């Protein structure tokens, strides 16, 4: 797949992660050559383990061609003037440097299998994908613009929870994005989410599970409370499968578990059903 120009442009700072030529699969221990791993969509060729994936890498595997980013200009402020071992602005600067991202989500518009859609992709590499004011604002801007353009929306989630350093401003993003989701869906627009490893806390308890169709990647850890918190509460070790995508499928929480290489296909098919449904409604109303 040729790399689109916008992707190369945004990727620059990401390259230091490629410095390590080999990655060890945390599941089966296989040493994987990093270029092969990337070519295999960051899935272990031996055991199928799904590595966490960068937002721009993800976008390049989902959209057909161009991707028009929106909300990139929205940047964090430091409302609580937080400083513990490090100041919050210093933490942000460090993550920007390391990840090549301006914040924990990349939002924009593109075509998926020929169907235009809004697309937001969270990235765990930036502050653990925590939900803060920028993530909340970008999701809201995306949904508002998608609503204006009457386009369906796909959100890929990856989040360790709420961003402590933004305190209640972070928590309020659940309310803000819920308001945006509710308006968007209330007008009859469809929302699809793809939950990737990990999807927990505030993101899990808002748009991740407010969608019309909820898809998850194999092995992804998904839940409200973190594993550690539960183990401390109940004072015993949890089974390995607990809170995995497969566990949630069995428990009826999610619609499907889909391997990374099929996710674009399934999204395109959902968009096709939606397009056919919309067309049918339009014809019936004539």
């Amino acid at each position, binding site marked *: 797949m040729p790399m689109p120009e916008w992707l190369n442009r945004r990727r620059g700072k990401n390259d230091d992660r490629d410095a390590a030529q080999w990655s060890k699969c945390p599941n089966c221990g296989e040493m994987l050559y990093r270029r092969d791993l990337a070519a295999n969509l960051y899935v272990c060729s031996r055991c199928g383990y799904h590595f966490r994936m960068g937002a721009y890498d993800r976008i390049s595997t989902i959209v057909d061609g161009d991707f028009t980013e929106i909300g990139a200009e929205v*940047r964090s402020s430091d409302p609580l003037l937080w400083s513990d071992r490090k100041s*919050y602005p210093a933490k942000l600067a460090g993550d920007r440097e390391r990840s090549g991202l301006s914040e924990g989500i990349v939002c924009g518009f593109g075509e998926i299998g020929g169907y235009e859609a809004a697309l937001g992709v969270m990235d765990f590499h930036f502050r653990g994908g925590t939900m803060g004011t*920028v993530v909340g604002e970008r999701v809201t801007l995306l949904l508002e613009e998608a609503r204006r353009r009457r386009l369906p929306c796909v959100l890929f989630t990856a989040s360790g929870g709420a961003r402590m350093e933004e305190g209640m401003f972070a928590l309020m993003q659940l309310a803000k994005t819920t308001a945006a989701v509710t308006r968007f869906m209330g007008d009859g627009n469809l929302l699809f989410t793809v939950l990737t490893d990990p999807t927990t806390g505030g993101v899990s308890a808002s748009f991740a599970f407010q969608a019309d169709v909820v898809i998850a990647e194999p092995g992804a850890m998904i839940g409200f409370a973190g594993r550690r918190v539960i183990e401390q509460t109940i004072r015993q070790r949890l089974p390995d499968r607990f809170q995995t995508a497969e566990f949630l499928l069995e428990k009826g929480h999610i619609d499907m578990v889909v391997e990374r290489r099929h996710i674009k296909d399934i999204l395109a098919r959902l968009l096709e059903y939606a397009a056919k449904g919309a067309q049918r409604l339009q014809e019936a109303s004539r």
Partner: protein
Amino acid sequence: MNPFAEREKALLELERRIGELRAATADQPTDMSSEIAALESRYQEILRDVYGRPTAWQRVHIARHPDRPTALEYITALDRFDELHGDRYYRDDQAVVGGLGLLRGRAIMAIGQQRGRDTKENLRRNFGMVAPEGYRKVRRLALLASRFGVPIVTFIDTKGADPGISSEEHAQSEAIAQSLVAFTNARVPIVAAVVGEGGSGGALALGIADRVIMLENSTYSVASPEGCAAILWADASKAEEAAEHLKLTAQDLMRYGIIDEVVPEPLGGANRDPNAVVARVLERVDAALTALERLTPSELLTARYEKYRRMGAWGERAPAVGG
């Protein structure tokens, strides 16, 4: 043991002695008024010393005080209350109490997190930590309020959503997410009162409101101080430090525009005069409802959207941080 309850013991001892002296004075001709005055002055001094300007961490303890009025104190102080139970699916979660009632002649849907007032009730109420069944009850009652056309009044008091195995198995995330949707969509006025601890998404699930009021010593935060310390520094014992960082006091949140009103408590906390505090909160809820009542459903929904749309600090509205 709650450190505030410990410190109160000195005060209670003084109170007892003042009371005894007063009783003695009434019976006997001896003039004890100067002794009484001295004790009372000392009493006030300790009061100010102990409670005058509590730190954030001290407020966390006031908010958790075992004698602080719980949601049920507010609910039973309504003119009338008819409790409604259950999620219609699996269980009646008693960490949530909800139902229809009358507040100063006005029909309302009251919903509160109930942490319990003694060990037995604590267990039955799961310390006010709500399970998915409870959030589904909340959601159902919020939808029902719109059907009745009556405003929603919530009393928030929880450390956070229940973090147990079965809560995860029963889709805690989905339950909270859908409760948020129900409050966002409710076509009736919503007033939320943070009367104790407001912990994380588990509190916000009852907290999307047209007007949010908070007792002076209540706390409301993105995570409990212990949870925050565990997340950031893998050390829950640094909770006090986290409490100061989190800006979880009513005063801070008022300044940030995240809440709309601070309701004063007596010196020493709501536990020192529960009835007065309950009455004052209900009075402020009533005032908020009176103001909101004039709005049509669509005006309400628009105003609610705009309110939460503004929550955050970025772009032109706030100086960007770093590069």
